[in-house]
């Protein structure tokens, strides 16, 4: 228990640091959101109205310290403020509207990538020296080339040239969002291409990790013993070797869940996907402090929670960590 309390204390401290950095970093950018707005509106705003707009957006000339205290106070009440880009929408509304798309797309893609990567890793360790060995260089290649390049290439081939898949949006224009089969089908269809690119680009890590641990595990005595007992090779492969080899992969899966929320900014930009990454880009372009702070906050909290879960998972899965901590 002391172990948990200590971890929790550490996470609280990290959360405070993250919140403070969230506050500071956007303010270090040059320029001012209202000036940018005026520049973008190309003179459709009368300069005399600029002060009024500053007030409307809640931009104050108060000292940084005062702003920081206000920010912490609002945060404590769950108040994230109003977005400047989407004024007068609340930041929480903007995040609530985009977060599900990112979690859905990147979350499912991460899950698929782990399931496929782990299974492939197991098989490749088991069937060394067969054609399966060729999968790894291919996957590593996809991992090594810049992600957006893979995505753009797939868009060009399957979206623009062959027209098998849509290249933008989260669902078709002719369906209304709702709990209908039509809508669900459209969402899956639109998520297919971006999900494939995420899986293709991230699978190499999982394959490599799983295969290497698996190869070591296969040399263990208990595996030899299981084989000697005459168990089916499938049973030996999955229940004896893979089960013990999977530990590091589970931890890294828990860790990567945290990054799901951060999304794949590049994926969302290439596919015009309406997730949190696109919102973050918009926020940065417009110096939308409240929106950026809100998104960074959600991302950092998600990473912290995922780390905490990974810690817990380790304690549950590996008895040795429990003993050392007491």
């Amino acid at each position, binding site marked *: 228990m002391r172990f948990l309390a200590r971890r929790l204390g550490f996470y609280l401290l990290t959360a405070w640091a993250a919140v403070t950095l969230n506050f500071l970093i956007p303010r270090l950018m040059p320029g001012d959101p209202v000036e940018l707005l005026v520049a973008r509106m190309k003179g459709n705003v009368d*300069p005399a*109205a600029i002060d009024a707009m500053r007030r409307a957006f809640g931009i104050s000339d108060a000292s940084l310290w005062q702003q920081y205290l206000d920010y912490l106070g609002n945060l404590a009440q769950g108040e994230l403020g109003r977005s400047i880009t989407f004024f007068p*929408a609340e930041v929480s509304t903007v995040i609530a509207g985009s977060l599900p798309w990112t979690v859905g797309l990147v979350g499912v893609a991460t899950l698929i990538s782990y399931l496929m990567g782990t299974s492939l890793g197991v098989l490749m360790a088991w069937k060394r020296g067969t054609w399966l060995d060729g999968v790894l260089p291919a996957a590593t290649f996809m991992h090594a080339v810049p992600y957006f390049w893979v995505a753009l290439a797939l868009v060009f081939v399957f979206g623009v040239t062959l027209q098998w898949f849509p*290249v933008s949006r989260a669902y078709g*224009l002719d369906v209304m969002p709702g709990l209908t*089969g*039509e809508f669900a*089908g459209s969402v899956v269809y639109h998520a297919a291409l971006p999900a494939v690119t995420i899986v293709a680009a991230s699978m190499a890590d999982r394959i490599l990790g799983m295969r290497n641990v698996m190869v070591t595990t296969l040399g263990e005595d208990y595996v030899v013993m299981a084989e000697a007992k005459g168990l089916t090779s499938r049973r030996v492969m999955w229940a004896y070797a893979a089960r013990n080899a999977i530990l590091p992969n589970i931890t890294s899966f828990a860790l990567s869940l945290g990054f799901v929320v951060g999304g794949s900014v590049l994926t969302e930009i290439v596919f015009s996907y309406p997730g949190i990454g696109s919102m973050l880009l918009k926020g940065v372009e417009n110096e939308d402090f409240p929106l950026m702070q809100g998104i960074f906050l959600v991302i950092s909290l998600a990473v912290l929670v995922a780390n905490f879960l990974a810690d817990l998972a380790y304690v549950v899965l590996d008895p040795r960590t429990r003993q050392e901590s007491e």
Partner: protein
Amino acid sequence: MKRCLALLLALALAGCSSSGGPTGKNSTSAPPLVIHAVDAGTFQEDFNPYHLEGVNFGTSGMIYETLMYFNKLKPGEIVPWLALKYEWSDKGKSLTFTLRPGVKWSDGQPFTADDVAFTFQMLKDHAQLNTSALEIKDARALAPDKVRVDFRTTSYAKLYNIAGGSPIVPKHLWDKQQDPATFTNAKPVGTGPYKLSKFSAQLYEMEKNPSYWQPGKPEVPLLRFPAYTANALQTALQQGEVDWAGAFVPDIQKIFVQGKPEQNKFFFPPAGLVSLLPNLTNPVLARPEVRQAMSLAIDRDKIVKVAERGYTKVAHPTGVPMPGGEAYVPPEYKDAAFKVDVARARELLKGVNPAELKFTLLVPSPFTDWVNAAQLIREDLAKVGITVETRGVAFQDWVSKVGKGDYELSIRGAEGGPTPYFQLRFMLFGGLFKPVGEAASGNYERWKDAATDRLIEEYAATDDLAEQQRATQGLGRIMVEKLPQLPLFYSPGWAQFRTTKYVGWPSEQDPYAMPSPYTSPDAAVVLLHLKPAVK
């Protein structure tokens, strides 16, 4: 077929079958028009016409209307809209409108002078909605069809902002709102030709308002606004999904026209002016002969052809948009045009120490066309012995540096207004002058000239069109003779449209409105001119 296969696969994955059926209404045979106005990943449910950016396009123009319509492509042309006429009194401090009879809100309530008075009263009470900074003292309904707005200062020059830029909202719905500044107006009720019929984060639709005051109009029954990001739009234009867009397209012949110039048209009229800004607080750039020499050295034809892909035209030396602005150009400069004269430029620079002719040209790196233009300017100026180093910076950085006067040379645009005066005032007015270090909102080159300010005040002090034109001509003369800014080319208003569904779009021969779908209320005026294409 392949597409069907993939769709089937997707449906099978979702584990359900679609109940289907076409969506949308099919009351008339005329097809819907698909419009792209602004880049957006998702839409927020905001139809408050006084919001600047969060508001969805079409709110003003299609749903809410103004009292008058000002055609920016024919400066001085004012079309009666919700008001039939206007009359100034009290030396430009009072404006009386006579309203059009028989106009109804889309919920059936009659449109009256109370609505107009309420709208201007709201602008007075909520400064953050008053984006034109109108100095309203009072707004009162005199009769059901007469309304008077009083101002604290002479407001002749703001007629456009009052009558052409303030959409009228219904009092009977808006006066219940506590704070109109944050009101998002999800169910808009307006007097305009369209009503909001469907909204989702990726698409909204507007259908024809059957009780619209212009009989038989509009002829386009349904407008669809899908959310496109900038790169998704290029694909959509190529595949023919969009009927009307306002976007920069890198290779328009290949991506959009596709060998069918009669069907896939574009029209890029001047919507503003892009100039080379010399920072006049720099002692070398403050010398008129230096600016004169720079202007003579720059080959603007080449910039337009190479950097701007021929999408626009070289600016008139006065900076006044042409064609259209003829009446605002001094008669002696009617046929003036920029000409390259390297020998004369060298002559002018004889008295300047060559070591001082070294400048940095600041450009926002996301604007690749301006970055290219800057390179060409650098080459041209090198020919007359001026060393220019071009520096691309982030958009935010550029806005901040130019605003504060922390630059030597830069490129920046000035938006055209209903008359060239608005643009020239933004560029030259001493009232906008800010010392270096303070963010300015106009007059970025920091021009201070008593004659200029006098002309601007003269324009603002009169309602007489001829007087206003004379004052603007004076400003044009200053542009040509003193070169406070070096005009380069007109910034184009982007408009791509297909004539397969509808015809009657604006053209160079008939510029009845700005053709860009993102200009309001012009876009609504365009829609009212469209007729189904006959096959």
